[in-house]
């Protein structure tokens, strides 16, 4: 297709894109005891550069205590045919402050600058929502899942922005009886959106009390929406198999109905699809066993904090943040995943505490995969208060970023020996790194119409 909008004509075109030369990763001081703003790092990922594997720029947010977490682009391949659009702004919300920072990455990609802030108070006043999480662009508009109302109670809803980043209001027409929000992904050719459930901000922000799961204060459902009508249509009640379902991903292939979700506490991968009679079905396809820990009275669940699909939809990756492993499964047959790779770093089981000379505090957490599927970037912090509970050392030592080389032909993974960023050595003191994005789009940013 001849065109000049952002992104790529198809996932197959995206795979052929040039290698990512820089990465954007957020780093936080919120919850560390260091009274400094959270910031957006530019990281040099060009192996031919003198500053390879270093933070080359830091853009501080104006306030303290935002807790930067996830981020998203103003535009993606969903507006590939619109040459008035370009991928120029990164939206970087603070989960705690609800401020949404609009960062201009186009003027100087290596040194992004702040373009505008949508203040949390304005969002609360206009929409009654707080705690921004996932961002997806939808042609020229932007939808953001908001996990709470203005008092931090669930279920929150969806914030709708126009392309100039003005608040249009709430995106959804109804939340139905959805109790909690978290992540979402849409597959427009099937008029469907899938959303998952964490908990109310007032529940998860102060930290994790396991007993509250039994009191139904954490999610256990996946919701399918009528995307055009903007209303929830069907719910999968996952029960004990789906405690705390977090990241949701549809296949990148826009014709596919297959989608996946990682249930963090149950440590299962849930798969759904539309069957031959046009009914949506779900099944559990991967079950990570709890592991015994010498000092813990309760077996340790994996805590699957993230999942990701390679751009060719062949591999599923996920992290067991507590166990400390990243796994690669061949999901060519989505009903029968095959484990093809596994690496260890950090984690509470102590299987690989030191990598490339750096003590890994935390476990493998957020991951981002190169468009060609060969390089997986990993960071170690989950959420400030949860980090403080499970990995108290991260407060003094900070997080780190590693790279894993992935064999896209035969499967398999290996930690790259030459890439390491130790956020314990940051100029303002040890910080913690979280989500990563690439200027040209990545494996969790783009959706095709």
């Amino acid at each position: 297709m001849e065109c000049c909008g952002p992104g790529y004509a198809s996932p197959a075109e995206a795979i052929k894109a040039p290698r990512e030369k820089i990465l954007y990763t957020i780093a936080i001081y919120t919850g560390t005891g260091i009274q400094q703003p959270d910031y957006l790092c530019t990281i040099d990922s060009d192996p031919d550069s003198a500053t390879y594997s270093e933070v080359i720029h830091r853009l501080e947010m104006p306030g303290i205590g935002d807790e930067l977490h996830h981020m998203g682009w103003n535009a993606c391949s969903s507006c590939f045919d619109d040459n008035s659009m370009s991928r120029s702004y990164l939206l970087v919300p603070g989960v705690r402050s609800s401020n949404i920072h609009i960062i201009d990455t186009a003027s100087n990609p290596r040194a992004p600058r702040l373009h505008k802030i949508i203040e949390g108070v304005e969002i609360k006043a206009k929409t009654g929502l707080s705690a921004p999480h996932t961002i997806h662009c939808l042609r020229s508009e932007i939808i953001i899942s908001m996990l709470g109302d203005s008092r931090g109670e669930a279920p929150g809803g969806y914030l709708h922005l126009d392309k100039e980043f003005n608040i249009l209001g709430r995106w959804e027409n109804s939340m139905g009886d959805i109790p909690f929000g978290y992540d979402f992904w849409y597959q427009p050719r099937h008029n469907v959106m899938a959303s998952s459930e964490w908990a109310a901000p007032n529940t998860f922000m102060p930290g994790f009390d396991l007993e509250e799961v039994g009191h139904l204060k954490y999610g256990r459902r996946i919701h399918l929406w009528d995307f055009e009508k903007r209303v929830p249509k069907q719910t999968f009640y996952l029960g004990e198999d789906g405690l705390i379902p977090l990241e949701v991903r549809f296949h990148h292939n826009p014709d596919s109905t297959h989608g996946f979700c990682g249930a963090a506490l149950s440590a299962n991968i849930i798969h759904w699809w539309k069957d031959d009679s046009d009914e949506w079905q779900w099944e559990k396809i991967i079950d990570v066993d709890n592991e015994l820990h010498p000092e813990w009275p309760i077996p340790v669940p994996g805590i699957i904090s993230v999942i990701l699909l390679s751009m060719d939809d062949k591999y599923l990756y996920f992290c067991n943040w507590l166990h400390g492993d990243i796994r690669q499964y061949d999901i060519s047959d989505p009903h029968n995943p095959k484990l093809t790779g596994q690496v260890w770093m950090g984690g509470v089981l102590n299987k690989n505490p030191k990598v490339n000379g750096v003590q890994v505090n935390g476990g493998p957490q957020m991951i981002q995969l190169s468009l060609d599927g060969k390089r997986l970037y990993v960071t170690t912090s989950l959420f400030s208060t949860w980090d403080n509970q499970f990995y108290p050392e991260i407060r003094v030592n900070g997080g780190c970023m590693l790279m894993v080389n992935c064999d896209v032909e035969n499967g398999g993974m290996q930690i790259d020996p030459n890439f390491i960023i130790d956020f314990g050595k940051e100029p303002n003191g040890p910080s913690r790194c979280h989500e990563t994005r690439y200027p040209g789009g990545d494996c969790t940013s783009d959706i095709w119409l």
Partner: protein
Amino acid sequence: MMTITLTNRDNARYKVMCRRSLLDELLDHGVDLPYGCRYGGCITCAAKLIEGTIDQSAQVALNNRQIDNGYIILCVVGAKTDCSIDIGMESHDLLYRNPFLEPLAPQDLRADVGAPKEA
């Protein structure tokens, strides 16, 4: 007016009004304090009460174990007497616990789901 002593800040003393939150009062006095939501839901502003009586009925962030350990939520707490408190992350030694290592008893949970505390 009440007097607040910051035990881990060289016993610095500040006069505060009882109607406003200690967070607002101390920030106005120039004390550097972490905060997030400012409605008692996110725990960022937690501090430890060493001595004194307070009202923090509006907080929803703390579980009963944390309250028993002396934690207060500065953004919604009002002082009912003179108080001594520890502030900042240094006061958070007992705030965070590994939920798999140290499970909570029913009466340790947050008020909305916890069993009533024994008198």
